[in-house]
């Protein structure tokens, strides 16, 4: 249901295992092998970063709130599990996703305004005729089966902030980690509360030591181990060497006592850490050229 994640369409229809997701994407590429071959594309993770950066540019121009941006990001990700990128004009898709997300997040923007802003950013890719965006909206909604309500990790973060006495610093870092998770497949893989917990945990461990990233990796491993330890009734986890700070220990303890899937939390942490690695390899130009090439060559901008 709408506010109940467990009965939501998000959980029932848009949450996949890694292998399921892999299969879905593979299947898309296999639909038209010639097309796939003719237009080889970069690592999806790099393209994700590209789409996202474009989207952020547009959102900034229009002063759109983060939650609407997050919703748009999830829409785009869902859409591209149904349609191969090579059959779309990503610029139009992401503009449309943002337009729709704003409506759903109760901060509607006029279609003309959205098109104007998008055109000023990507004049070669956004048709001036607003009805093209309107048409694309149908496409998006239809591929998403009208399932437009998105559950975000921000809510869990806000809830836990009070319950766990999180310090402001941790909350801020966790918040921006959540912002970053939309650049990965995580929204299609795990429940929002799992992501929120992973973000909190990362926030706590990253600032722990100077070797922040390594600390986070350790923490992820530690989390997986500690689940075992806690299950076995060991109360010594909090004093584990890898994670010296007591606060984290008690956080883990709190986690283990609940119903949270710790393996999923650890997985999410890993995914975010590797996002930062991928990011280091990212170059906007290559992505841009590739996308432009497909769109232009196939006349998808018309």
């Amino acid at each position, binding site marked *: 249901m*709408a506010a109940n994640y467990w009965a939501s369409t998000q959980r029932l229809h848009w949450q996949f295992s890694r292998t399921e997701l892999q299969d879905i994407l593979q299947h898309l590429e296999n639909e038209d092998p010639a097309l796939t071959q003719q237009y080889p594309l970069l690592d999806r993770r790099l393209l994700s970063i590209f789409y996202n950066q474009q989207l952020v540019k547009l959102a900034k121009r229009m002063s759109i*709130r983060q939650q609407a941006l997050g919703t748009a990001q999830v829409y785009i990700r869902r859409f591209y599990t149904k349609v191969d990128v090579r059959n779309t004009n990503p610029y139009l898709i992401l503009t449309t996703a943002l337009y729709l997300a704003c*409506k759903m997040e109760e901060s*509607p923007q006029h279609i003309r305004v959205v098109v104007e802003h998008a055109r000023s950013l990507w004049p070669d890719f956004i048709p001036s005729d607003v009805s093209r965006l*309107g048409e694309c909206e149908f496409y998006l909604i239809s591929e998403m*089966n009208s*399932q*437009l309500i998105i559950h975000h990790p921000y809510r869990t973060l806000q809830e836990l902030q009070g319950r766990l006495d999180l310090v402001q610093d941790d909350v801020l870092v966790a918040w921006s980690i959540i912002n970053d998770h939309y650049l990965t497949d995580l929204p299609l893989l795990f429940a929002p509360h799992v992501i929120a917990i992973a973000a909190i945990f990362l926030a706590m461990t990253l600032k722990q030591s100077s070797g922040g990233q390594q600390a986070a990796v350790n923490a992820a491993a530690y989390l997986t181990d500690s689940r075992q330890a806690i299950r076995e009734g060991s109360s010594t986890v909090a004093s584990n060497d890898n994670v010296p700070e007591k606060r984290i220990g008690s956080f883990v303890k709190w986690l283990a006592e609940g119903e949270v899937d710790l393996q999923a939390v650890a997985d999410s942490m890993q995914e975010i850490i590797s996002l930062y690695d991928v990011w280091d390899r990212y170059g906007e130009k290559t992505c841009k050229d590739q996308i432009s090439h497909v769109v232009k060559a196939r006349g*998808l901008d*018309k």
Partner: protein
Amino acid sequence: MPSMVYKNKVRVRDKYRIVGFISSGTYGRVYKAVGWNGQTGDFAIKKFKPDKEGEVIQYTGISQSACREMALCSELSHPNVINLVEIILEDKCIFMVFEYAEHDLLQIIQHHTQPARHPIPASAIKSMLFQLLNGLLYLHRNWVLHRDLKPANIMVTSKGEVRIGDLGLARLFYKPLHSLFSGDKVVVTIWYRAPELLLGSKHYTPAVDLWAVGCIFAELLSLRPIFKGEEAKMDSKKTVPFQRNQVQKIVEVLGMPTKEKWPGLVHQPEFAQLQTVPYPRRDSGSAGPLGLDTWYWNTLRSANYQEGQPSGSPGQQGLDLLTSLLDYDPTKRMTAEEALHHPYFTANGEKVSANCFEGMTTQYPHRRVSQEDNDIRTASLPGTKKNGLPDDTLIGRPTKRLKE
């Protein structure tokens, strides 16, 4: 392959046969249909048409209201909420396919006013109200405010099951990241509009829906809207007017709200305006406001609600419940959950029937289905606005909805 074009995979006319036309609402038209492929039951297909720009129909962006209704109905599933079968996007139109409901509360109320007024049996009212509250509790538990509860939006199936319909104004209210008052300005058909909204409050809460339930309860008993005010129209500057007449109608029955009974009253934006509403003062030779008790017992008497009579009686408990629903103070107003546990429903240990027609001999007429326009493709659409202003920039039918 040419440019990116939307092509629908499912076509309405391939799956459904339109039997006739039911109604033309704010956002489009509703048709009755049956399935071509042996789907069981009848369907109501709500067609949202895009705004017309010139001669050809264009994509102009889906209204926020349609987006909400599509998204919420896709998530909701409860025996007392209208069941969405599917949504088809085709020919620049949205088709929402619902299970068909033969009746609605407005139609049932109207049936009881003709040829002469005859009361809806007390047991039927109890069942209708119980089911309505049950559906509302589900919505509220899931953080959905309906915001437009009124008899016409409450459907009843031929088996006597109540289904809350028309979620076009419904929205989620948890959204902690921003306040609830952005977006549309005024909500709920004026007769069912809660006092805090009439007094300009922007923080609406689930309590607004319970006020509407109170009004509906009263209307089921008396067969007339209890607070039938005249809507003040928006002026040319598009400022939302103070609904003086509507407030007056409420005050005539319930008396002036006081800050003793409603501490938040003085903080209502239109508090000053409230002082200017004429109302019958007890001292000036008049008998003062009627009082809900008097209204209630008068209504019961003239409708001949009595124990031992065929229609039975909602009794003292009914008044208690009604009083709690029509509490001025939204923070004290009864919640859906509390209402369901009210002695009105639970006394005597009997279970409220899930069929509001149980034991009744009355046959309600079938929903009127006209043949005038049963071409679902038809482009001309009487009663819709001429100029496209998507994103809730439109102003609805003046007596119904005002949107920013």
